[in-house]
């Protein structure tokens, strides 16, 4: 009798262990999902409050070139044709293409920007200077290195050049602030030349330590971005 009970108990325990082993991965997935939902960062919450680039559904679908990393040639960018309902307004258009760039290519290995980074704001000044303000993740989640940071910046510049001709040069801000570097390597104090029409040679023409020496129109725009991101 005792032996029969022991076998029966052992069988029940074994079944319980197998059931638990089968259920555990599903339970872990559920816990992680719940954690993701509850641990919403301040950055994500703020991003939701900021107006996102509207999808101009009335605009016709247009084939645009997005510049993502090449799988075959390391450190190179390749144009990838994507269809978008591209707005006529250059600011909306810039937001659309940069958000598409951030969303990434089908092949994740060709991504040039971190998947959790977001475009917080985009402005174009009357002189053709674009100002792109990205969330902190563009610096905290990007793979560290000169090559990866250079590729990230180049993909932004080439994508704007191909699709928003009104942007002649670009200032990159992070969370409404000027940054010395993207993630410790590539210099963000300068204006990057976007369009060959910008013959003034702005790249390295206006390098400045964060918080000083920016031309007045850009300084005003930076202050506007700062005020917006502090709200």
């Amino acid at each position: 009798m005792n032996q029969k009970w022991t076998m029966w108990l052992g069988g029940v325990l074994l079944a319980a262990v197998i059931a638990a082993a089968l259920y555990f991965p599903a339970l872990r997935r559920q816990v992680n999902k719940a954690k993701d939902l509850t641990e919403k960062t301040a950055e994500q919450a703020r991003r939701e409050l900021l107006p996102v680039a509207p999808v101009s559904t009335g605009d016709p679908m247009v084939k645009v070139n997005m510049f993502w990393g090449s799988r075959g040639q390391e450190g190179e960018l390749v144009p990838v044709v994507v269809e978008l309902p591209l707005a006529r307004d250059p600011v909306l258009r810039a937001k659309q293409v940069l958000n598409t760039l951030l969303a990434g290519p089908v092949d994740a290995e060709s991504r040039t920007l971190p998947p959790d980074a977001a475009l917080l704001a985009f402005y174009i000044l009357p002189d053709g200077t674009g100002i792109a303000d990205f969330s902190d993740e563009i610096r905290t989640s990007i793979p560290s290195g000169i090559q990866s940071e250079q590729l990230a910046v180049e993909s932004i510049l080439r994508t704007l050049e191909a699709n928003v001709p009104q942007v002649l040069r670009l200032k990159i801000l992070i969370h409404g602030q000027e940054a010395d570097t993207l993630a410790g390597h590539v210099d963000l104090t300068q204006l990057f030349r976007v369009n060959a029409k910008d013959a003034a040679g702005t790249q390295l023409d206006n390098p400045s330590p964060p918080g000083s020496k920016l031309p007045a129109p850009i300084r005003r725009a930076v202050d506007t971005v700062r005020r917006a991101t502090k709200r």
Partner: protein
Amino acid sequence: MVLDPAHGGTDPGARGTEGISESDEVLQFAFATKRALEAQGFQVILTREGNDDPSFDDRSARANAQRGAVFITMHIASTGLTGTARVYVEPDAPATKNIAGLIPWDRAQAPFLSLSRKLGDLVQQELSKRFKGSPDTLQTAPVRQLRTTAAPAIAVEISSVVVKERVELDRMVPGVAEAIARGLVEFRPTYVVPSNSAPGGSVQP
């Protein structure tokens, strides 16, 4: 020769497998390169020898305070084909105004760009001989550390901290040191301090 092992202190740089951090590993490359350069008769200064993190400007200042210096900042990426190395120089910059022999600190690299390219080409050729898959020619990138350096200046980036075993990275140390030393030996006879550059210590803050 001013060798700059990048990052340090609270900034570990790239983080890889087996607890490898760029700031620690790059010191090994810098120490080995120092020994290889000293064997060729160069005087070598490191911008850091321990786990501290001088500012970009402090690192540049080590080279800017001396006439006839050469500056190499050393990095290890978290991407790229393992076992390869790339040399970067600053992109072309507009001509700088040289008033009373001074050049602006923010554009200190501008008068040295052609020399930096020459040095970069020589070092990249040596690296590509030793590390298969490395590019044959140097790359350009606006590397922050280079912009404020008033000397021929290059960045050497090694791939990568993401290796199966630490030994893969350690195996690259002698080759990188030797390549840099060979490149410098070839560069030395061609190095004439540009007349439009500031004399030692006269870089305008």
